[in-house]
């Protein structure tokens, strides 16, 4: 009875956590990279916008962002949509600030001569970033980027407090319904998070090795 209930709830929660993680990772990476591009752009207002974004979203507690996207903005009819997407919004906006800083540090490791050579063959600023600078920047920041994604994995658990049925939500449910199996509840949920983190670290290590070959 307990075992079948545990596995089915774990499976449900795991799927929701993966969806939160997948969407937030995707959006945060795209947004964070765009912000990093803004921060190195030759246009001062864009740079200022990038800096302000990072300052605001990196320094706001994640729970506060959730309160804003889940409760505050819908109250003003600004962000409608399901709780799931409101949670993804909070997670993405928050994580994008960290992705931006990591990518920007990666851009700074790429020798300035690379961008000059790209501009010399007629590439525009955006093409230079996209084809020459960013591919090299990402290679140089695989470990810190993986850390950002691992932090994001754990941060998805905040969504449980806002009624998203993720792994952590399932944990509190299980504790309530099966207080006698307290340890098993904790261990199995922890194992699920560890599995996700292990996959991220493994993928990062694999990428790093692949990139090392071509250097």
């Amino acid at each position, binding site marked *: 009875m307990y075992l079948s209930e545990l596995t089915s709830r774990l499976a449900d929660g795991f799927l929701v956590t993966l969806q939160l993680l997948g969407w937030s990772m995707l959006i945060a990476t795209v947004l964070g990279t765009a912000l990093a591009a803004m921060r190195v752009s030759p246009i001062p207002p864009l740079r200022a916008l990038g800096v302000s974004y990072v300052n605001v979203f990196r320094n706001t507690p994640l729970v506060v962002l959730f309160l804003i996207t889940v409760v505050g903005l819908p109250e003003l009819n600004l962000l409608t949509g399901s709780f799931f997407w409101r949670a993804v919004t909070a997670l993405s906006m928050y994580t994008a600030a960290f992705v931006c800083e990591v990518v920007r540090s990666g851009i700074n490791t790429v020798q300035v001569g*690379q961008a000059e050579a790209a501009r*010399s*063959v007629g590439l525009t600023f955006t093409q230079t970033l996209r084809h*020459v600078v960013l591919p090299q920047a990402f290679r140089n920041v695989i470990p810190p980027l993986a850390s950002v994604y691992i932090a994001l994995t754990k941060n998805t658990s905040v969504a449980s407090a806002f009624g998203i049925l993720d792994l952590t939500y399932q944990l509190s449910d299980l504790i309530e319904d099966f207080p006698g199996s307290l340890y098993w509840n904790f261990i199995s949920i922890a194992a699920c998070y560890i599995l996700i983190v292990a996959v991220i670290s493994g993928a990062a290590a694999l990428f790093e090795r692949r990139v090392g070959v071509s250097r």
Partner: protein
Amino acid sequence: MAASNQSAAAPTGMNVAVGEPLVRMHGVNKYFGSLHVLQDIDLTVDRGEVVVVIGPSGSGKSTLCRTINRLETVDSGTIELDGQPLPAEGKGLARLRADVGMVFQAFNLFAHKTVLDNVTLGPIKAKGEKKADAERHAMELLERVGVSNQVNKYPPQLSGGQQQRVAIARALAMRPKVMLFDEPTSALDPEMIKEVLDVMTALAEEGMTMVVVTHEMGFARRAAHRVVFMDEGQIVEEATPEAFFTDAQSTRAQDFLSKILTH
């Protein structure tokens, strides 16, 4: 100062007539903070002409070269390429840069791309050439500079001389109107200098318009129509290589030559 007509004495092997002005710098000034790196520079480079820029370290040679494709902005004065003033920013500037090939002292090959992809990136992305066409042209150029058997290698796997020849092919792939070389052999071991200079000499003989910052006297004598001597941000003297090396007029040039010719 406007010495474009001094260039009539073509060196041996020239098969293209020296023509109308292609690069025209007029009254160009540039500061780095309080340092006046370019002072009232007037320089005209004609189509098909090879100009060697020479001078002590810090005299502004690199900066001069880099203003021609606007890797450095200028504070005053005008620079024209083929009769058009340099655009300030954006797509127009990118288009202009496509017409100006640049070869750097440090090669600056794209580290994450193969030799072939290094050469085709510009033509494909900036000019919209088809991949197959760009690759065919790239192979021709790589053959010409003698590295066609290395096309699938990455830059760090090549010797310095090979990297610089790939960099020349990469610039030529854009079919530029003028080629700029900023000390292209200074980072090379002596045995590799010749292979790069040979490629440059051949290019000069084919009639490419070139501005070359170099201290290679042999190359200047062999390929240049004109030597421009810079010191402290000014063009101090312009002459044919023959006249400059045997009979420099200014004391600054004489000083400089006595220093570099004694070792």
